């Protein structure tokens, strides 16, 4: 277990280092930040001073070395737009909103997806199964950003039940979380259905039934537990969906998270913030995957060595 953990950790560091180089290179590849920062009336003196301040007069390799050195000290630069706030401060401010949204979407997906899959498997080949499969197919085919707009139109504009956008109370959370969760509800339901159908035909389920256990115990305890491993495997893909979802959904619902920060900084060519956000999201993404892999190894005795 420990060597495995160490190897994964080393791989993560290498991936992160590579990501930092790609982001840095892309950030420097196009456009001159100085031209973006100063207006057209700035003097040449101003330009030279700002170039020196940002270290843009040094060779690219030196610039990268400085970037890494500062990053390791927890300094990822300041935003080039307006108020010049430190990038990490902006991220720290936005991160809780994103985590709240992602965790809610995850809970929604699990709470709806798993029972839906179980229900479909137990009532296999009936209309319930058919409806659940169709719902799952629909959920995987709808573009998240469009769903967000449609939900907003239905529940906020037409019915007036929920606010269109904003952040604060639970009512603001409903529409973004549902938009973000629908795809994963569908994916989880499908995985659980396939797993349950296999599990319900297995010997241990037959034994549990022969022992005289109630059908509820057999289905929800014995069979379900063994159908959940594929769901855990899927979590890696889930986190990738979450990152795309965060960018799109947060933009649609004006949710003050790091997904929108990423989008805004990329669109405004705010290089320091952009680098910081992309690196932060990479770290979160890799940590989440690491946790899933460790959980998987712990839960499945066949993988544990």
């Amino acid at each position, binding site marked *: 277990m420990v060597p495995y953990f160490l190897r994964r950790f080393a791989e993560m560091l290498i991936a992160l280092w*590579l990501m930092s180089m790609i*982001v840095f290179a892309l950030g420097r590849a196009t456009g001159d930040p100085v031209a973006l920062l100063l207006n057209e009336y700035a003097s040449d003196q101003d330009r030279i001073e700002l170039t020196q301040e940002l270290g843009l007069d040094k060779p690219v390799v030196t610039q990268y070395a400085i970037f890494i050195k500062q990053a390791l000290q927890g300094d990822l630069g300041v935003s080039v737009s307006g108020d010049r706030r430190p990038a990490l401060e902006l991220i720290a401010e936005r991160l809780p909103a994103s985590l709240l949204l992602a965790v809610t979407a995850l809970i929604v997906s699990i709470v709806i997806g798993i029972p839906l899959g179980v229900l479909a498997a137990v009532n296999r080949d009936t209309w319930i199964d058919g409806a659940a499969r169709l719902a799952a197919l629909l959920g995987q085919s709808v*573009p998240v950003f469009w769903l967000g*707009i449609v939900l907003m139109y239905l529940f906020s504009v037409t019915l007036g039940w929920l606010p269109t956008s904003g952040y604060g109370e639970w009512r603001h959370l409903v529409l973004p979380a549902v938009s973000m969760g629908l795809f994963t509800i569908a994916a989880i339901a499908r995985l659980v259905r396939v797993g349950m159908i296999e599990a319900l035909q297995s010997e241990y389920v037959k034994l549990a039934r022969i022992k005289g256990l109630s059908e509820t115990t057999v289905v929800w305890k014995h069979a379900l537990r063994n159908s959940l491993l594929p769901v855990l495997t899927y979590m890696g893909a889930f986190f990738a969906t979450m990152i795309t979802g965060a960018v799109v959904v947060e933009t649609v619902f004006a949710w003050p998270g790091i997904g929108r920060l990423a989008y805004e900084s990329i669109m405004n060519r705010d290089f320091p913030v952009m680098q910081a956000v992309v690196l932060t999201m990479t770290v979160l*993404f890799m940590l989440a995957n690491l946790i899933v892999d460790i959980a998987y190894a712990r839960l499945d005795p066949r993988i544990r060595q």
Partner: protein
Amino acid sequence: MMAFARKSPLLAISMVLCVTFVLIALFAPWLAPHDPMVGELLERLMPPAWNVDGNWRHPLGTDILGRDILSRLMYGAQVSLAVCALAILIAGFIGSSLGIIAGYVGGVVDSIIMRIVDLAISLPIILLALLFGVLFGPSLGNIVIIISLVLWSQFARMARGETLKVKQNDYIDLARAAGCSALRIMVTHVVPNVAGSLIVLATLQVGTVIIMEASLSFLGVGVPPPWPAWGSMIAEGRSYVVSAWWLCIFPGLAVLLTVLSVNVLGDGLTDALNPATREGRRR
């Protein structure tokens, strides 16, 4: 044909929808009633024809610049189809080639290729894609490159796994004993035997690619305006959702219907080729 339609109506409908999608995309210039890029400002924001203020000249209404929505949807299908075909071909070719080489050659080559694949899977590529799109400007070529960058690793994984299976067959050893070069064995003996699984994977990717293309266009890094793409049409209609819902709803429905039918078809194909899984197991 009729018996098939009765047996699985959903599959039959999906097949018809997919064929319709491809035909519309291919023949958009002849089918579209209006120029998708030129609008009549006097006819701007006209509702669909069945609405009181609608007119059959514009069956699905017009947008903010008076451009015909139906024509724009048809040309938008062209964009989706082009991106899909190109991205899947490029990613499929590069990914599969690397995967087959990794699986067949093994050793250090295998380790290096698979480490790169692991890396590609462990990074949130969508952010890089967005960055790439903004920095190098929106264009059809760039969006194809972006999507290929996201897709290739899955083809590489699948191709490697399948190659490892095929490699155990006697005919590979016999070919080697007969003096065939590694390249020749890979091309004439491995490729035909792994192609089936890779084609199924490609079918399953079509829906993902259409949604990805729409998402990127929605975020403003797709095909540049005024060329119509479904994602950018939704983005343009977003601010008018209250007063002119048709701007946003129709392109979304186009994406939904296309992706749904492609997914149903992909599942059907998986089942047909692999009777062991009644439902296509997808991640």
